[in-house]
């Protein structure tokens, strides 16, 4: 009997994999098991010629996923390695796609990884900060992928913009000279996209284990709500099998 029930992390990887197109170039980042799973799954499915580059390792072949995804343990088997010199250039040229997580995310998709409460010099809570803040504004698009969906993480306005989403909306986004911006926000509970006119976050689909009411209650701002919110498509048995057998062989996404 085939088990078609998947975990939230597996579903997030599946949702993101379907967004990536053949021939594109992008990277997952550090601590990015779900994004790397999405890229690898896309490669096995519809996008065999995706190029992974922009974060030192060029076209890595990870034999399994790890909680940290930016080291030789995970990605050392690859076609080539760059250094931070090349990171500088990639950051300016941008990628086709990249992924971000955040301590705080607001309705315009702005991301905060620096601090919550107080000031930058004397924060109430200091976060890890971020390495690459440029891909958000130079890449063709990025995805927000989170490990939690709560009013603490989804706030009306971030305390600090580490990586820019759509700032305060269309005018500010354009005035800042940004391009691309967040395309989707994928959490363990739901998929959100952005209204093309207001550039504010709206609900796109809810995972089968959640409800619209639950998503609304766990989002700290007024989420755009279409008349009908479908369930998020689940991977079919074959796809899930591929994910587990070829990508996540160590079961990191099932923990």
């Amino acid at each position, binding site marked *: 009997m085939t088990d078609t029930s998947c975990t939230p992390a597996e579903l997030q990887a599946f949702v993101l994999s379907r967004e990536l197109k053949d021939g594109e170039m992008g990277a997952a980042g550090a601590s990015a098991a779900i994004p790397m799973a999405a890229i690898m799954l896309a490669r096995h499915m519809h996008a065999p010629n995706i190029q992974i580059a922009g974060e030192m390792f060029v076209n890595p072949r990870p034999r399994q996923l790890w909680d940290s995804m930016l080291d030789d343990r995970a990605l050392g088997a*690859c076609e080539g390695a760059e250094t931070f010199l090349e990171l500088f250039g990639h950051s300016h040229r941008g990628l086709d796609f990249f992924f971000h997580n955040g301590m705080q995310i607001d309705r315009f998709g702005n991301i905060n990884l620096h601090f919550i409460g107080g000031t930058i010099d004397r924060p*109430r809570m200091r976060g890890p900060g971020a390495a690459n803040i440029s891909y958000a504004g130079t890449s063709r698009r990025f995805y927000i992928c989170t490990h939690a969906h709560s009013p603490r993480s989804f706030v009306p306005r971030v305390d600090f913009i580490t990586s820019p989403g759509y700032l305060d909306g269309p005018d500010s986004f354009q005035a800042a000279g940004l391009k691309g911006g967040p395309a989707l926000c994928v959490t363990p509970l739901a998929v959100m996209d952005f209204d093309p006119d207001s550039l504010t976050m709206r609900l796109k689909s809810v995972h089968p284990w959640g409800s619209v009411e639950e998503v609304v209650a766990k989002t700290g701002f007024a989420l755009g709500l279409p008349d009908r919110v479908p369930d998020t498509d689940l991977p079919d048995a074959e796809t899930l099998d591929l994910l587990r057998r070829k990508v996540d062989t160590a079961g990191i996404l099932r923990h």
Partner: protein
Amino acid sequence: MSSGRREKLVPPEALGDLIAAWLGDADLLALGGLFKQGRPCALVREVIRGGRRDLKLVSSPGSGFDVDVLIAADCVAETFLPAVTLETRMCPAFRGAVEAGTVRAHCVDALSVVGGLMAAAHGVPFQPVVAWKGSDVPRNNPLAAEITCPFTGEALFATRAIRPKLALLHAQEGDRYGNIRHLSTMTYADQMMARASERVIVSVDRLVSTEDIVARSRETTIPCIYVDAVVEMPYGAHPTGSFPLYSIDEAHIETYADVAEAARRARRDGGPESGRDGSGGAGYGLADYLNRVVHVPATQADYLEAIGGEEHLTALEREAASL
């Protein structure tokens, strides 16, 4: 940068004096590697034993364990570090010290650090950065200033050259003249840091002959002209990984994080006086950890015994070999 080709191999016993001579209190120290790989952990323990205070830290864009231990040991006043994390969890000492106001964590990103090291390595005062748009980071970044492009009139940023007083790096191989060979796939920002820093000390897992270096010269990642001292230090990156020789000791890092987190909570709840020895549920405290791992072991061999000995290290080697 070194003057003259000479033997640069130093015995581990000489490290204390060298670091004392090349790194003063409040100086800027650069640390090689990235996150949990290729970090100069044995050299960092030497810095702690030397009692350096009020250091400023810079690294490649991602750092974690060794930086946190330096902060836990009260060696640090300021950081110029983009991301400080153990990846699966936050860095407890870093977080606690910044929240308590005892460490100032400057707001920098990858391009500030990489651009700053590039500028210093290239011998110019700053590096132009265009790709800072929309973020609050450049506005709060002490290394950044707005400039105008002299050719197009476009507004952009300059990021200031970063010239560390001393760089501590770790690689897998090197010779007695200080020619360094990383066997790892990634070389982090080590090459840039070697070129940007006033003094450079490299620990290597094993010493190789100069004939061996010459036979594979394309694989020399840092030529001797950028190195002031090299020390043979088996497992010198432990508990971070030194690929392809040994993998990351996640269990050790996790144990450290547990005691450091307990100390952070104790300090937060009990005021600044009660903090550093709080053990929470970990069974022993941060001070015990620092004693057992940093202060008591007289040699690297003693350290390796203290962290689990040969059997433990063999398992890390086996994991690296299986990748």
